[in-house]
């Protein structure tokens, strides 16, 4: 019996050595590019340069606590806006701007805007390096007063992005049905 206890101790020692060999670095790179925040910035074209910002924020990612901020998009009727989208990871400090990565790897990504109910036309999406639509910036033209949604979808399609891709192609990284009011 004593023998096997000493063997057990030896066993632990051996595996201990093995484990320390596999031990991870204390300092780890960020687990993944968690997108916690989507911020839409609207600048009125030709107006007084009014800037409005609307935000979605879910700091702990999917699951856990519910999103803490989800502003309705509110735009004035019969106007034209330049819209730029910012994707952030606010769960880390300093805050990480993921927009640049989407922009740098624009040929793997595409943002789609689909309106429903709201009287808004979205056009003039910016292009990636290959000349295919990317959608980090766009022009929003409002019509008469109305209420509905604009669904903003960020698709990830490494290596397969092509002209005229349907929205179903690739994996969805973001899909937000954004309540939108033209008033």
């Amino acid at each position, binding site marked *: 019996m004593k023998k096997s206890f000493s063997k057990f101790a030896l066993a632990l020692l051996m595996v201990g050595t093995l484990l320390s060999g596999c031990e991870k670095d204390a300092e780890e790179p960020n687990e993944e590019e968690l997108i916690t925040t989507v911020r839409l910035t609207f600048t009125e074209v030709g107006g007084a340069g009014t800037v409005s910002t609307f935000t979605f924020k879910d700091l702990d990612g999917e699951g856990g606590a519910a999103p803490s901020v989800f502003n309705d998009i509110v735009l004035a009727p019969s106007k034209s806006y330049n819209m730029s989208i910012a994707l952030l990871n606010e769960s880390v400090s300093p805050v990480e701007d993921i927009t640049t990565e989407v922009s740098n790897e624009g040929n793997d990504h595409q943002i789609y805007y689909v309106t429903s109910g709201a009287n808004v036309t979205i056009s003039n999406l910016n292009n990636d390096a290959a000349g295919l639509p990317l959608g980090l910036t766009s022009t929003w033209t409002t019509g008469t007063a109305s209420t509905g949604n604009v669904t903003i979808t960020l698709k990830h399609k490494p290596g*397969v992005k092509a002209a005229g891709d349907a929205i179903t192609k690739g994996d969805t990284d973001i899909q937000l049905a954004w309540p939108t009011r033209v008033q």
Partner: protein
Amino acid sequence: MLIRITTLLVSVFISLSLQSQCTLQYAGKITDGDTKEILKGAVVTLKDVGVKALTDSNGNFMIKGLCAGHYDVIISHVGCQPLLTHIHINDDYEKWYELPHAVNQLEAVKVMSHNINVVNPTEIKGAQLDALKGLSLGETIKNIPGVSLLQTGTNIYKPAIHGLHSSRVLIINNGIRQEGQQWGNEHAPEIDANLASRISVIKGAGTIRYGGDAIGGVVLVEPKLLRLVPGIGGEVNVAAFSNNRQLSIAGILDGNLTKNNAISWRLQGTIKKGGNSKTPQYWLDNSGLEEYNFSAAVGYKKTNWSSELFYSQFNTKLGIFSGAHIGNLTDLMTAINSTTPPDYITNVGFTYRIDRPYQKVQHHLLKSKTLLSTGAIGRINVTASFQYNNRLEYDKKRFQSSEDVPQLDLSIATAGLDIIWDYFGHKKMKGTVGLVGSFQDNQYSRRLFIPNYQSVNGGGFITNKWTISKWAIEYGMRYDYRKIFNTTDNAGNRFSSGIYSSLSGSLGAAYVINSTTKLSLNASTAWRSPNVNELYSDGLHHGAARIEKGNANLQPERANTFLSELNINAEKWTIETGAYFKYIKNFIFLQPSYPPQLTIRGAFPAFIFSQTNAALYGFDVSLGYNVSHHLQVNTKTSILRAMNKRTDEWLIQMPADRYQGEVTYTFNNRTLFKETYMRLTAQAVNQQKRIPKTGPIEISRPDGSIYYAADYAPPPQAYFLLGAEVGTTLSLHRKDYSIIISASNLLNHVYRDYMNAFRYYADEMGRYIAIRIKVPFAVNNNPKNKNK
């Protein structure tokens, strides 16, 4: 073969006077050297004169009318090594012999061949196992009635017994309870099936020795025993598969150093590599796998004790079919509504390359086992073990510039000590009493799925078996204690601790109706404490497209099981039937919760771990009929019904009714080719229609109307598969080389299986052909050369 008589314990020599007439008698008693059991039906042969005698039920034999002189004696018995001895008699002679047990040298006593079994494990070994080489552990046992597979794609297979799996099924690998991340549906057992020389499944009862929480059952994986005969030998198993161009090479080398001190050793290793699998119509992108395993064992055996040290390492990298990696519900519904994955996924061809997403798993097991004889009445087993498991899960990269790091990194270390006493001193009763304990430490880094925790487990058990004429009665009791503490996440949040303890027990009886028929009945009660994922998980389960929330208030499950088995083993017929009823109080399951939860990827249905009472019942039937000496027909049936008793609805994700049939034609043995056979197999799996009627998942019909379901898609259609197998054993230079060629899904049928999590995305594998070759070899089998 050289036989030693070092195990003699008692020797009574009666020498009175010299006699010259041939009226002497030679008498004795024969027992099993390991178990001390009396051996009935052992054959004692006097070689020179050709006289034979059989032992009676007390193990006694007698040969009368012998002349004085020298005789060579052979004593043999099924399951034991034959004993060769030499006697010189000049008077009546009496001696007690102990036969060394052939199959149980360093192993615990299990079931003796002449015993009445109360618990009837289903075993896969020998030729049956040879025909399954190169497959994962799950696939190896999937044809056992009552066993089904919980599948994730084409290379993650988890065994389910009577519909229960994960932490409800215990896997005992080489005597040690496997401690990996077994709670996960897509976490396959981290075990090299090539190490096993026998895999047994115990359904329902008789699992007290292995753990109180084996609510579903136990899978026992046992390696080849250490070599007893001096010399060095080995075996190479090669298996090649056509579909994913997989090659598996497994080698084993074992030796016994000296003949007196019996130091034996064994080295074993497996290399396995497979590429993309192919459905009948398209390749499954990124479905390759790699596996590298090895183990080493050394044993030392003396008369009164023996000791064994074992180490094994398991490494695998499993590709996850890229078409099953979805971002959100919209993607999932797109995948379900299109009958095949999109072009840009099916356009890929064959490759061995494994890309992200993939899983990378490593498992270490170190164990020492010492057996101490406690005289003729029993034996103590002391087993110490250490396991370390590391699981890395790599999702698809969001950006090419992303770091090549896993999203999930879980490691669990477990140290265990078991002290078990097997006693068999009493004529009619034998049993086991034991104390077991373990300490476990679980750590994660990166994404939180289950928290860090430590746990202490302790338990004690006793089982006894009485055999009285045609009856055998077995009962057992066990107490287990489990404490989960230091439960934290890496952000510094602390979760509550949990302490759980309770009793489990079993009572079984078997009655031998006649020489061919046996009936057994078992009742057992077992409990399982809630798992850490059931208590604390909180997040999106990507594969299942749902948010899973733990529930810290869960109570342990209690399962009460009744199992009755009828076994008939007649000349023409082999019938094994088992009917079971299992009532699980506080059955832990994922309860849909309204409303869906909003995330940046859209809204996902949320599920909370909840409890209900569940009833599972059904039967497993295996029927064999020998039409002739050559032709054999076998069928297997597995039927399960599983109900949520609180809502009176069917439980989700339970295997459908399954039927298998096979016809085997065995040819006469030739000088060169032995055991040549041809086999045709068929498998029919029904559509699972017993599913919950409603759930939280909103599904649009083609006409635009909406309904609520428990699942994203209805269970797949029933399917029927054909297979074929031919095998032979080539005898060359006294060695048996086995060659088996088999074809699965012979008709290249397109189907999906309800128990496969990837049924939403792609079809199952198409036709594949496997060739398996077993090559035994001997490095040195001449004991004289090794005997220094």
